C-alpha cells in the first residue's frame, strides 16, 4: 500500500484500520471486545439484509417506507432509529460501568484509549442519535395530527432530514468497524481534538457525524415551525393548540437558532484539522475558549430541545389519564416560552471554571437559577391537573409520575451546580454526570417512552402489553436510582468523570451499586423489546381500530388507528382546547361528512435516501481523505437538488371514492364497537371507542 495508486484511491485507510485485523494481530481482551462490537454491527446489518431479501420485502420497504414522504411513516422510522442507537449506547454504558467496577487499583479489561472511545460514542449517540431522533420522530408523528393538518409544511425536506440523520448514525456504526472513534468526549474539546494531539480519524468521524446531524435537526426545526405557524386547521388558534404542539414549537425555534452555533464550532474545528487554520490550536493565535463558548451556545439550548417535547408529552398524558382539562394551560404555555428564551442566556454555566471573572459567573449563575422558576410552575400545574381527577395508573402515567419526582431531584442538584463556587469543587466529577443523567433520563427518556406507550395504539392500531410495560418501567426507575445516586456520592468525594480506573478503595462499593444499576437499565431495555414482541403476537386481541383507546382529548384521537395516509378526510374545524373530548360529549365527535373530495398527498421521492447516502459518503470520504469520493458525493447532492427542482409531478391524488371507502370502513367499525369505561381501558375489551359519561 505504499505505491501511489492506493493512497489516491483509499486515502489513509490501511488494513490495520479494521477492528478484526487489530484483534487478529493483537488478541487482548480489549481488542476482542472491539472486534466483537464490530462483528455485531456487521452481523446485525447482514442479518437484516438477509431477512429482507429472503422475505422479498425490498420493494415493499422501498415503496412504503424508505421513500415515503408521509410524516407518520417518517416519524416511525425516526423512532426505530432511536431505539437501535439506544441499544448500542446503553450497552456501551454498561461496559463502562463494568470496567470501572473492575478497575479499582486494577487495570480492568478495557484499555484507556478504548474506554475514551466508549464515553465519546456513548455521549454523542445518546444526544445526537438517540434523543434527537426520538423526539423528532414523536413530533413528526403527532404534531400534524394534533393541529388538524394533512402533513408537515415540507414533506420532502422532512425525508431529507431523516436520511441525513440516518446517514450520520450509520457513520457512527461504521466507525466501530473501520478505524476508531474520537477519544475527545461528546463535546470534542480542542486543543485535544486538534491534529497535533489526535491525528487519527476519530475526531473526523465525530465532526462529520455531528455536523450532518446538526444540519438535519436545523431543517427539522424549520419544518415543524412552519407547520405550526401556517398549517393549523380553522379555529385552531395558537392558544387552543394542545400543549405538545407548544413544546414542539418552542423546541423547533431552539433548533433553528441553537444548531447553527454547533455547526460553526464543528466546521471551524474541521478547518483547523483539514486546512491548518488556527481557531482553537495552541499556537499562532488559536483560542480554544472560543470553542467552549460556541459549543455551549448550542449546548445549553440543546438541553431544552431535548426536554421540552417530554414536557409536552407529560401534559397530554397527565390530562388524559386524569380525565381532566390541563390545569393552568396559559401558565404552562408561558413557562414553556420563558424556558425557551432563558435557555439562550445561561450557557456560561457549562464552563464556570474556565477562568472568567467572578462577576460574569455570578450573572450566569443567577440566570441559571431563574430557569428553575418556570419549571417549577410546570410541575405544580401537572400536580393540580391530577388533583381530584379520575387518575389511572397506566404505563405512560407511571412514567409521568416517576418523572415528576426524579426530575425535581435533578433540578435541585442543578441549582447546587448553578453556584459558581460549588461548581468549582465538583466540575468534571461524577457529580455532574449524575446531575445531567438525572435531568435527561426522566426529562427525555421517560417522556419519550410515555409518549411511545400513549400514542403507539394510534400509530399501529393495537395497544402495547401492559404487564411488560410495567416491568420495563420498574427497571428503568429502579435501575436509574441505583446507577446514578451513587455517582453523586462519588462525585462529591472527588471521583473524576471519564475515569478508566480508580485508585481509591472507598469508591468500590458505590461503583458496584452503580454497576448493578446499569445492568438493571439494560434489563429495562430488554423488557421493552420483549414487550414489543409480546404485543405484536397478541395484537389481534388488542386492536383499537376505532382510534380512541384512552378517551383522548385532542384531534389526533378523532381518526382511525392507524390513521389514513391523508389524516383527515375533511379538515376539522375546532372551537376549543379539547375539541375531540368536547365533541364526544356534545355528540358530534364522529360526525359523518356529507361527501368527500379528492385529496392530494405527496408522491414518494428518492431524493431523501439519495441525499442521506451521498451525505454519508461525503462524510466518509472526508474522514478517510478519500477526496474523489467526497467530491463525487458533494456533486451528487447538488445534482440531486437541481434535478428535483425540475420535477413537477410531485403529488398523487387519492380519489374521493377511495376516501369514502376508507372512511366508511372506519365509521362501520365505530358503530360496531362496544364503548369502554375508563376502568377497563387496559383490557382486551378496549376496541378504541370511549364510553362517554359526563
Amino acid at each position, binding site marked *: 500500500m505504499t505505491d501511489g495508486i492506493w493512497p489516491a484511491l483509499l486515502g489513509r485507510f490501511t488494513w490495520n484500520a479494521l477492528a478484526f485485523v487489530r484483534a487478529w494481530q493483537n488478541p487482548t481482551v480489549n481488542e476482542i471486545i472491539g472486534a466483537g462490537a464490530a462483528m455485531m454491527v456487521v452481523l446485525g446489518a447482514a442479518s437484516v439484509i438477509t431477512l429482507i431479501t429472503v422475505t422479498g420485502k425490498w420493494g415493499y420497504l422501498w415503496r412504503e417506507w424508505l421513500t415515503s414522504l408521509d410524516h407518520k411513516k417518517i416519524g416511525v422510522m425516526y423512532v426505530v432509529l432511536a431505539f437501535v442507537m439506544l441499544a448500542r449506547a446503553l450497552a456501551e454504558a454498561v461496559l463502562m460501568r463494568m470496567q470501572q467496577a473492575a478497575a479499582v487499583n486494577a487495570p480492568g479489561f478495557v484499555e484507556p484509549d478504548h474506554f475514551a472511545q466508549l464515553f465519546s460514542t456513548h455521549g454523542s449517540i445518546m444526544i445526537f442519535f438517540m434523543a434527537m431522533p426520538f423526539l423528532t420522530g414523536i413530533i413528526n408523528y403527532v404534531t400534524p395530527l394534533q393541529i388538524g393538518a394533512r402533513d408537515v409544511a415540507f414533506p420532502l425536506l422532512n425525508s431529507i432530514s431523516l436520511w441525513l440523520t440516518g446517514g450520520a448514525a450509520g457513520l457512527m456504526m461504521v466507525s466501530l468497524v473501520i478505524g476508531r472513534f474520537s477519544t475527545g468526549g461528546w463535546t470534542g474539546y480542542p486543543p485535544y481534538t486538534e491534529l497535533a494531539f489526535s491525528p487519527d480519524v476519530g475526531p473526523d468521524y465525530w465532526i462529520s457525524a455531528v455536523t450532518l446531524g446538526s444540519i438535519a435537526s436545523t431543517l427539522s426545526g424549520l419544518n415543524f415551525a412552519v407547520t405550526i405557524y401556517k398549517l393549523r386547521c380553522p379555529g385552531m388558534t395558537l392558544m387552543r393548540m394542545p400543549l405538545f404542539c407548544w413544546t414542539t414549537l418552542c423546541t423547533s425555534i431552539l433548533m433553528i437558532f441553537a444548531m447553527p452555533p454547533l455547526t460553526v464550532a464543528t466546521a471551524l474545528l474541521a478547518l483547523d484539522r483539514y486546512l491548518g487554520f488556527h481557531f482553537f490550536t495552541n499556537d499562532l493565535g488559536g483560542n480554544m*475558549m472560543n470553542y467552549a*463558548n460556541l459549543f455551549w451556545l448550542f449546548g445549553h439550548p440543546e438541553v431544552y430541545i431535548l426536554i421540552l417535547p417530554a414536557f409536552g408529552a407529560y401534559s397530554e398524558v397527565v390530562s388524559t389519564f386524569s380525565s381532566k382539562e390541563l390545569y393552568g394551560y396559559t401558565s404552562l404555555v408561558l413557562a414553556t416560552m420563558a424556558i425557551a428564551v432563558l435557555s439562550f442566556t445561561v450557557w*456560561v454555566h457549562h464552563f464556570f471554571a474556565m477562568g472568567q471573572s467572578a462577576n460574569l459567573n455570578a450573572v450566569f449563575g443567577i440566570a441559571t437559577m431563574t430557569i428553575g422558576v418556570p419549571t417549577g410552575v410546570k410541575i405544580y400545574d401537572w400536580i393540580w391537573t391530577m388533583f381530584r381527577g379520575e387518575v389511572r395508573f397506566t404505563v405512560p402515567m407511571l412514567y409521568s409520575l416517576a418523572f415528576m419526582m426524579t426530575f425535581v431531584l435533578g433540578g435541585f442538584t442543578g441549582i447546587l451546580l448553578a453556584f459558581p463556587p460549588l461548581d468549582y469543587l465538583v466540575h468534571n466529577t461524577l457529580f455532574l454526570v449524575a446531575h445531567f443523567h438525572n435531568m435527561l433520563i426522566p426529562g427525555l427518556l421517560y417522556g419519550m417512552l410515555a409518549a411511545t406507550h400513549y400514542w403507539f395504539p394510534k400509530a399501529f392500531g393495537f395497544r402495547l402489553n401492559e404487564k411488560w410495560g410495567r416491568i420495563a418501567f420498574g427497571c428503568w426507575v429502579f435501575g436509574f436510582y441505583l446507577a446514578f445516586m451513587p455517582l453523586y456520592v462519588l462525585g462529591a468525594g472527588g471521583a473524576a468523570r471519564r475515569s478508566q480506573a480508580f485508585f481509591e478503595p472507598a469508591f468500590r462499593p458505590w461503583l458496584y451499586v452503580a454497576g448493578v444499576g446499569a445492568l438493571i437499565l439494560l434489563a429495562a431495555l430488554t423488557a421493552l423489546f420483549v414487550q414489543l414482541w409480546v404485543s405484536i403476537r397478541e395484537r389481534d386481541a388488542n386492536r383499537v381500530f376505532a382510534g380512541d383507546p384512552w378517551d383522548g382529548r385532542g384531534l389526533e384521537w378523532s381518526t382511525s388507528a392507524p390513521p389514513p395516509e391523508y389524516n383527515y378526510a375533511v379538515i376539522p374545524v375546532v372551537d376549543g382546547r379539547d375539541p375531540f373530548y368536547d365533541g364526544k360529549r356534545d355528540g358530534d365527535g364522529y360526525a359523518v361528512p356529507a361527501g368527500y373530495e379528492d385529496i392530494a398527498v405527496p408522491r414518494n421521492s428518492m431524493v431523501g435516501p439519495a441525499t442521506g447516502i451521498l451525505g454519508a459518503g461525503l462524510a466518509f470520504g472526508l474522514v478517510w481523505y478519500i477526496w474523489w469520493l467526497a467530491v463525487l458525493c458533494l456533486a451528487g447532492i447538488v445534482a440531486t437538488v437541481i434535478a428535483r427542482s425540475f420535477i413537477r409531478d410531485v403529488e398523487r391524488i387519492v380519489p374521493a371514492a377511495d376516501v369514502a371507502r376508507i372512511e366508511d370502513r372506519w365509521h362501520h367499525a365505530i358503530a360496531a364497537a362496544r364503548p369502554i369505561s375508563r376502568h377497563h381501558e387496559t383490557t382486551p375489551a378496549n376496541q378504541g371507542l370511549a364510553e362517554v359519561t359526563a
Partner: protein
Amino acid sequence: MTAPQADPRREKRREIRTYAIGYALALALTGGAFAAVHWPRFPARTTLGLVFGLALVQMIVHLRCFLHVSLRRSSRDDLLLILFSTLIIILMVAGTIVIIANLHGRMM
C-alpha cells in the same frame, strides 16, 4: 395602505421607485462610510462609530426597500421572526465578545 388594487401600473411604478430609492440610499451610505475611512477627518473611534452607524442604517434601508420589511406593513409572523432573530443574534454576539474579552483581560 388600502389603495385600490385596480391599477397595477401605478403599483409597479411605486415599486420601481422604492427599489430606486433604496439603491440610491445604499450607494450614498456606502460611499459615506468608505469616504470616512479613506479621507479620515475624525479620530479613529469616531470614524468607527460612524461606519457602524451607517452600516446599521443601510441594513434597515435594505430591509425596508429591497426586502419590504417594515414595522407597519409586514405580516406579524415574519416581523416576530426577524425581531426574535435579532434578539438572539445580539445575545450571542455580545455574550461572546464580553466573555472572551473578559478571559483575555484576566490573562494579561
